């Protein structure tokens, strides 16, 4: 696939989603350019995962449109949906690996069930994907026998084995320590360049996302309140961007205040 800097692969317009009275997405619009890494940042509970699941058709949006490669993904257009599914992959926060299958069987699964390739070719392609992610020697292992990092790589191997054009990453570093967070983002950047897919990542890891991404957006209270390059994000004067970006400085200020004997006041705005 040929990356084109100016071609939007995915266009989202005015996306709405609510659960009961709780509005999660309130008119989200953005464009993801082909061959780029696009990260959607936001605090926990901002609706990032819901946004990604609406795009991947796991959750039906209440309103708005999603277009993939110029083709509108309408609710009743099953042909467009099938085309979309065959050209995209989804990496789940918890990897969603089949624990009763080996690493090789997990990787083979999408090829076995969505293509008519002969068994031998499926095996070769699956082993190649495992080799490319440096886990070929664990082909016969079950996910439970692999470390967290290897499970993540196995999930990525399963996601790329069909050679997708767009890969969705749902909080790929959730629950990982800083070193592993760096490793996961480095892995995404490496394989994105190697295979040329477009990556859409939702995460709350600001530093790693800014380093690894071509463009970032900030999702807050159901709306995109910033979209631009990593540099523009770093230099933005928007209070909401500053609050999220400079959370470490805020923590430092709070700790200094506590050490100097001031009473601690929990910021309830974070929870709301």
């Amino acid at each position, binding site marked *: 696939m040929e990356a084109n800097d100016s071609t939007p692969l995915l266009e989202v317009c005015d996306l709405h989603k609510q659960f009961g009275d709780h509005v999660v997405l309130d008119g989200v619009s953005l464009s993801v350019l082909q061959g780029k890494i696009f990260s959607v940042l936001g605090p926990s509970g901002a609706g990032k995962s819901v946004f990604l699941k609406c795009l*991947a*058709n*796991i959750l039906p949006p209440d309103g708005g449109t999603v277009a993939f490669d110029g083709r509108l993904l309408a609710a009743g257009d099953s042909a467009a949906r*099938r085309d979309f*599914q*065959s050209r*995209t*992959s*989804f990496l*789940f926060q*918890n990897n*969603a*690996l*089949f*624990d*009763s299958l080996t690493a090789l069987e997990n990787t083979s*699964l*999408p090829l*076995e*069930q*969505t*293509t*008519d390739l002969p068994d031998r070719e499926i095996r070769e392609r699956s082993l190649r994907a495992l080799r490319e992610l440096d886990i070929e020697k664990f082909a016969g292992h079950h996910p439970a026998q692999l470390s967290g990092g290897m499970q993540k790589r196995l999930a990525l191997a399963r996601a790329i084995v*069909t050679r997708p054009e767009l890969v969705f990453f749902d909080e790929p570093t959730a629950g990982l320590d800083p070193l592993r967070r760096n490793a996961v983002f480095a892995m995404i950047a490496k394989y994105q360049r190697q295979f040329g897919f477009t990556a859409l990542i939702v995460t709350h890891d600001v530093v790693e996302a800014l380093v690894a991404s071509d463009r970032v957006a900030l999702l807050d209270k159901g709306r995109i309140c910033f979209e631009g390059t990593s540099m523009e994000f770093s230099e933005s004067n928007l209070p909401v961007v500053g609050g999220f970006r400079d959370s470490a400085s805020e923590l430092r200020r709070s700790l200094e205040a506590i050490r100097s004997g001031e009473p601690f006041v929990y910021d309830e705005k974070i929870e709301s």
Partner: protein
Amino acid sequence: MASIIGMVRLLGQHTVRIISSFGDFALFTGASFRAVAGSRRLPRRIVRAVYEQGTLCLPVILIVGAFTGLVLGLQGYYVLNRFGSEGLLGALVSLSLVREMGPVLAALMLVGQAGSALAAELGIQRNSEQITALDTMGVSSHGYLVTPRLIAALFVFPFQTALFVAVGLWGGSLSGSLLLGVESGVYWASVEDAVRAADVRECFLKAATFGLLTISLCAYHGFHAHLCRTATGAQAVSASTTRAVVHSSIVILVADYVITSFLV
């Protein structure tokens, strides 16, 4: 007055929910059969399902079948002995097993082992987003997870029932002939005289129906573990597995009555 209206409203809500769940179940089963069309490498999955419902359940079928026959032989002998009709022991054991006890008990055993395992497996796969992952890959989760099990059940339940009946007849012979002195030839001749082709047809029809209904019910409950209203996470899997086994057991007995009343 307000409490009466509240009770009526509650009753109405429950009734609507039950009717709605019947509809959901019918749609679920229909979708699973429709998925045959788009399923790839289905025979391989069917073989795996036959192994789960067949090979893994063989011990329980053989043990329960043998002891059912042994007890039927004992009880039957003492009842028939009162009327001096011990010679009919084979007829009593065989008709009891072929027409009623074989299909019902074999199905109950299969639900206890294969059905509960299926509900729990699907519940865990739902909780860990494995089923959602299939959908995002463009793989029909019905076609991959449910369809092969339903097709396997249509063959495995009748086969296991036949095995249950065969072992039960041998158990009846053991207690009747070996322990209580009924002539072995008389026992088996009585079996041959009593069982007709229609009885065997009824037996297989019941077994296939029970298989289809119960495996579909267990899959339905596991598949929808995330919609459990009373629990979440591991407790939801536990609750849906319990519901799957209880509902399947009830359905076996209700379906048994309906089929029997039509065929007798």
